[in-house]
């Protein structure tokens, strides 16, 4: 009998252009809480998805009770005793608690020649399970009527009902209140008392140190080490999480920030869990980095400023004049542009040509007599950008979806530059782009700042933030927790602000 209930060794997983996991490992002991930590993109979720059969690993081995196994899909994982509560809960809101828990494996009874769902048994079993997770609501209640923490309990009850031996909790407390977190911890204690191994993924140091027995830290898809939680402190964890060396990946910066031109005052979302009371200023020719963990509401804030999301209060000023922004068109007309995070979802128009994609937001400029678009002017725009940013495309008529990610991103940057904006917001401008193209995009950003454009750059890569920003604004859980001068920024002081939960 092995001392571990589950072992993952030498797990490798590549996505096009990215090595997400590079010989990662994880060993879980029964009845222990094992924290899995790392920066955004360190590979925690990918590793869990390999364990749960959502992804197929390229290399590596999974052993359960010392026996090598292959996990084909989530159903298979459940049969082998592995259950997972996802960060984004996916319940079916219009159905009852019982139906959600037993979805796909309803208890059946014979009714003459036909099998029907045994509702009585299902709801009785559900009541039993809810008692186990210390919840006392009606099994027949619709899941949509529950609070987020109750929904999470339903998910945990579902995991418990599968008699799981390994339970994965991915950022379970990200949307819970302090009391709800305590309730969750009590459930975890109950489970470990029954010899269940719990994998706990979280960014919250105090929680980790309090609840976990062991901590495994990952960085860039690699296994860094496993420690007993009692040996660790917050500082030690942060050092291990971010401890990569900065190499010369960034261009020298010669932009000189000038006077304050852009100002945001008391900006608050209509959603109480999102950004609130945000104040910041931006100088001419400045690159303001925005750091924070996943869920810090950085994207939401910027999309709010750009008019994609709504806000309840707050003002935006450019050169002392207040801007009214209710949709992206208004923002663009007033000199604010935003390169969105999700390139495929809200950036490219895949089936359209490079020329159509690059010109879409500045079409009015190429009109002849106010009616017809002058194709030559559009072609000139494409050629200028191709030359300036070294965009590799067979022709201006090529469908943009056939270009590489880096070239698509350059086309989108070109789309915004065609409008000559004063303030350019870049949300994860280098995500999913290979190293060479990254450097080219950094050069473009630096050049724009030098030309006097004010730039806001959201990035989840610490080194990119430090390497590119004049100043860094750090957010945590919807609030701005502090500003750090680019010269003084270290991965440690950014991480400290990014984990400053209320």
């Amino acid at each position: 009998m092995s001392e571990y209930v589950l072992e993952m060794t030498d797990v490798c997983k590549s996505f096009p252009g990215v090595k997400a996991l590079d010989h990662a490992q994880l060993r879980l002991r029964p009845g222990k809480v094992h924290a899995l930590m790392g920066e955004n993109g360190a590979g925690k979720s990918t590793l869990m998805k390999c364990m749960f059969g959502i992804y197929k690993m390229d290399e590596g081995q999974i052993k359960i009770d010392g026996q090598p196994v292959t996990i084909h899909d989530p159903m298979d994982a459940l049969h082998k005793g592995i259950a997972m509560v996802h960060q984004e809960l996916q319940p079916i809101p219009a159905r009852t608690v019982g139906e959600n828990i037993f979805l796909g494996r309803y208890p059946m009874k014979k009714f003459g020649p036909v099998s029907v769902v045994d509702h009585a048994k299902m709801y009785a079993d559900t009541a039993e399970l809810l008692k186990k997770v210390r919840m006392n609501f009606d099994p027949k209640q619709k899941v949509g009527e529950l609070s987020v923490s109750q929904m999470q309990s339903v998910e945990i009850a579902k995991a418990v009902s599968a008699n799981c031996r390994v339970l994965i909790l991915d950022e379970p407390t990200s949307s819970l209140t302090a009391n709800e977190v305590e309730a969750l911890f009590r459930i975890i204690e109950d489970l470990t008392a029954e010899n269940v191994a719990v994998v706990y993924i979280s960014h919250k140091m105090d929680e980790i140190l309090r609840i976990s027995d062991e901590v495994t830290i990952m960085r860039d898809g690699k296994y860094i080490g496993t420690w007993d939680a009692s040996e660790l402190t917050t500082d030690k964890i942060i050092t291990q999480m971010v401890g990569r060396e900065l190499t010369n990946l960034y261009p020298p910066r010669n932009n000189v920030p000038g006077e304050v031109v852009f100002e945001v005052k008391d900006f608050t979302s209509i959603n109480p869990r999102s950004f609130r009371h945000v104040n910041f200023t931006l100088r001419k020719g400045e690159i303001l980095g925005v750091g924070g963990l996943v869920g810090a509401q950085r994207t939401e804030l910027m999309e709010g400023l750009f008019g994609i999301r709504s806000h309840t209060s707050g003002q935006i000023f450019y050169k002392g004049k207040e801007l009214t922004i209710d949709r992206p068109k208004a923002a663009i007309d007033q000199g604010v542009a935003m390169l969105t995070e999700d390139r495929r979802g809200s950036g490219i128009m895949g089936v359209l040509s490079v020329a159509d994609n690059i010109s879409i937001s500045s079409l009015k400029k190429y009109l002849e007599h106010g009616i017809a678009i002058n194709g030559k002017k559009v072609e000139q725009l494409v050629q200028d950008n191709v030359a300036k940013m070294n965009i590799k495309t067979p022709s201006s008529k090529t469908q943009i979806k056939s270009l590489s990610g880096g070239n698509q991103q350059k086309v989108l940057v070109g789309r915004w530059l065609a409008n000559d904006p004063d303030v350019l917001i870049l949300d994860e401008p280098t995500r999913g782009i290979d190293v060479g193209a990254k450097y080219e995009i950094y050069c473009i950003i630096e050049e724009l700042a030098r030309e006097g454009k004010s730039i806001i750059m959201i990035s989840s890569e610490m080194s990119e933030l430090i390497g590119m920003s004049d100043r860094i604004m750090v957010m945590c859980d919807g609030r701005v927790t502090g500003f750090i001068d680019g010269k003084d920024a270290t991965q440690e002081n950014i991480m400290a602000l990014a984990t400053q939960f209320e």
Partner: protein
Amino acid sequence: MDAKQVNSNESAFNKIKKVVTGNPIVFLLLIAAIIVGCLKDNFFSWANFGNLVSNTAVRFLIALGVSGCLITKGTDLSAGRQVGFAAVVAGILCQRGDYTGRLWKWAPEMPIGVVLIIVIVLGLCWGLINGLIVTKLHVPPFIATLGTQTIIYGISLVISDAQPIGGFQKIYTSLINGRIGNVRGFHLPYLLFVAVIFGLLFWFIYNMTCHGKYMYAIGGNEVAAEVSGVNTTNTLVRIYATAGVMYALAGYLLAAKSGGASASMGQGYELEAIAGCTIGGVSTTGGIGTVPGILVGVLVFELLKIILQFLGVNPYYNYVVQGLVIVLAVSLDIRKYIAKK
């Protein structure tokens, strides 16, 4: 033999092969037409040609209207009923003053030009209503236009009293059924020119104007278009409104062409128009579609009907064949995208 020569020959052959395999339905029907033409005497006749042209012209106008909806991933199921509504209104207003069966006896005899304007304004209103339901009430186009088509049909029944309408002013029918030339039966119907003018106009709108570019952008990725500063609401409303105008025009022409109108006129034309667009390469996944393609699609569909007619196929089977062609065309279209994934 020169090796280079062989290569260029081969690539020319490949090009032809690509065109044929890219539009299999079109080529199958052309082959069918040639075969039928050889078997039946009257198939390659000017009379048949004129017939095909004027049938295609009206359908082409409807297809142009619905194409904008399809390119933006929407649809317009009210097209056929809007055509019927316009035909009924035009028919009633164009009845002769001395016609005994005149529906609105109190109304003065109206110049047909004025009637055209009235019909088009009404069509614009229907289109605006569709556009506003889709954009402001956020009802999916399929359901929105399913609702309005029922409303429009009801109103057509009410105003026509569910009666067939005839007794048109002579100038109305003779003008619209007019033709140029009659050299050994060769003639060009006026409707052909209407179709050509609107075809060119739509080609211009789709390729040269901001509105056209915005339309393709919305079809390509509506969120990205909105984020890029495209006023997606206005663009979509304009698209549905333009569609309404095209249906109204088609209805006006159709009533005169048939010499009579009724509320059931135009029934099912929306499906024919959508089928024509799809056969002509308007992609059901949005963002793709050209005016020449739409023309080819509609033409092919009309050609199919005439072929079946000449073969003496029981008219009831026509529906079966047409339906099969639609399913086949769309499944082939989808295949292009599945293969690329």
